[in-house]
């Protein structure tokens, strides 16, 4: 299923799932206060691949995913501590193009996009920039359509670290590692198999940023269930993203993913 993930500050954390090229690790996971004994969790027969397959199944199944080739979504974003609300538009086209626009009141507009090669960002405040290195890597992974089905191509490894409680409910803990070595930890509810939480620390232009995202309010759209609410905590602040409209297989003009002239100017410099 499609997962909509919110990454604040960073071209963080990949969407989709990871390629379980390594055997699932069953050793102790990272320290967590609410950790459940690892052995009490995953049945020995389950691997990371199994859990991710169950996740795809729980969110609609491979066939449902494969019927989709593009997505246009609208959302609101609220930053409660600042009293700010923004409107978000997201466009994604298979295999790997994306564009996002956030209109944040008097702070102006923030845009991000990729044509599958160049990852860029433009804001009314900080100007335009082309992402590189690990930021670019995450931007490219994040743009992959139906990444849930392609995790083996996108990640160097996915490891099952055991079971931990998320809000009191046991969840499988998987660590995804990108080709450059960036990691994201995701938690899949043991019963529903839905993604309920993710966390990552990523190297951003501004420094290392840690964030945690909670996923809830799963709803089916065109046969694929996705979280309509995401709460991201980073830098001691919370942002709440709520989907308001999702459409699939929409004809998106190619110009939507074309590089803006100022991005092209930067590349030409």
């Amino acid at each position, binding site marked *: 299923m499609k997962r909509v993930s919110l990454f604040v500050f960073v071209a963080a954390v990949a969407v989709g799932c990871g390629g379980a090229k390594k055997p699932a690790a069953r050793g102790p996971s990272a320290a967590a206060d609410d950790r459940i004994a690892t052995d009490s969790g995953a049945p020995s027969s389950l691997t990371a691949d199994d859990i991710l397959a169950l996740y795809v199944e729980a969110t609609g199944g491979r066939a449902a995913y494969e019927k989709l080739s593009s997505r246009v979504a609208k959302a609101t974003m609220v930053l409660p501590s600042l009293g700010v609300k923004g409107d978000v538009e997201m466009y994604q086209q298979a295999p790997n193009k994306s564009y996002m626009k956030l209109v944040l009141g008097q702070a102006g507009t923030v845009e991000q996009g990729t044509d599958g090669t160049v990852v860029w960002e433009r*804001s009314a*405040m*900080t*100007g335009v920039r082309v992402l590189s290195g690990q930021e670019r890597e995450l931007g490219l992974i*994040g743009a992959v359509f139906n990444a849930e089905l392609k995790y083996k191509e996108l990640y160097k490894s996915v490891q099952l670290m055991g079971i931990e409680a998320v809000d009191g409910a046991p969840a499988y803990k998987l660590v995804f590692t990108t080709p450059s070595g960036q990691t994201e930890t995701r938690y899949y509810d043991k019963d529903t198999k839905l993604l309920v939480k993710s966390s990552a620390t990523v190297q951003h232009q501004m420094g290392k940023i840690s964030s945690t995202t909670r996923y809830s309010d799963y709803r089916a759209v065109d046969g694929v269930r996705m979280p309509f609410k995401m709460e991201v905590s980073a830098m001691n602040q919370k942002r709440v993203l709520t989907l308001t409209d999702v459409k699939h297989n929409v004809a998106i003009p190619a110009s939507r993913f074309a590089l803006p002239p*100022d991005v092209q100017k*930067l590349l030409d410099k």
Partner: protein
Amino acid sequence: MKYRVSSALCLCLATVACGGSTASKAPAKTTPPAPKYSELTKRNLASFDKVWTTIRDRHWDPKLGGLDWNAVRAELRPRVGRAKSVAEARVVLREMLARLKQSHFGILPLSTLDAIRGNAPKNHHGGVGDVGITVRYLHGAAMVTRVRAGSAAQTAKVTPGWIILAIDGKPVAPMIQKITAAYKGSTMLPLMVSRAVAARLYGPVGSKVKLRFDAATAKPRELELARDKPNVPYASFGHLPKMPIRFETRRLGKDVAYVALSVFLDPPRVVKGFAKAITDMRDTKGLILDLRGNPGGLAGIAIGIGGYLQDKPNQALGTMITRVGKLRFVLNPQPTIYKGKVAVLIDGLSASSSEILAAGLRDLERARLFGRFTAGASLPSEIERLPNGDGFQYAFANYLSAAGERLEGRGVAPDVEIVPSRKQLMAGKDPVLDAAVAWIRAKQ
């Protein structure tokens, strides 16, 4: 589908280092009733605990520079328990904060809080007006430094260099004395005095205020001025109050570009306007960026402006340090870069993003700074009322410039320090601006 929110957003979120950054949490206007001794002790101890805990939990350095904070508590809390007045407790609380050896942490008597707040509006929109004068704490007085065109003050022929002696019959001097005592030695003194005076000049549009001026004449001038609303755009962001934005671009002669910005808000207009200005005036020898009186705002705008002034990659204005991490304020070189000299004008009311931009550009060897020391309020600090009625001012983040200089509580030193004299102001001179123009026009 993936949705990322950019660094730009994060910057504006993480560092809504706003407007002068001293957000006062509505202290009471009246002194709490005199409590019995036991009640007094209880309030003083609760105040001590509040201060001690806040520092422990929110100071940007969890190790507090190696200070044994528990030992400090063990030593000083009993003394607060023995204090026979709020004033005695205040002495101990101040001693505790002094152990940090950092400014921007203070205990303010309630009367000082009232002196600072005055009639300061919670919001500038709607009916809030002023008489059209800009006031600075200069040479120990509340001096007019600018008169807005078309305002009641201009109509009444108020001129820069006049000194405000009284507002609505209340002398200004005692208020200045109180604030001066509280902020003695602090870089924030000019900011706090100027704001306190300005706060008393606000009022509903159409209302009147009586002012007594020292106009350098034999007798003080008494004027009654009507408040009006500045005819400029207003902007806000989230919980920040709406504020008027003076964003001015023009040429000084043919060879100098001038850009003035009164607050870092409204990025679509300001950053775009800045880009247009430096494009239109790219043939000039130099650019003057006037940040005098600019209290800050969205730090992302400082980064945006900086991105048009230097073209090296991975250059940062500086680093913000909080309990949860560090953020480098990295500039993004833009497709169009201004290549001429850059002079930044600063004064005691330049705070927050103004300081971040000025210090950063100087450290990156991209600008020369003219004017006076800035406020040393680079990031938000708060004034919170304590259980015993006093105010507790603290900063919860630190900021290091590109050269590693701490700005919080220290301010940014100008390269060329110029304090306008009263005589210069009365003659209509702007010696800070003049010095910057001369530097740009100089061959070296």
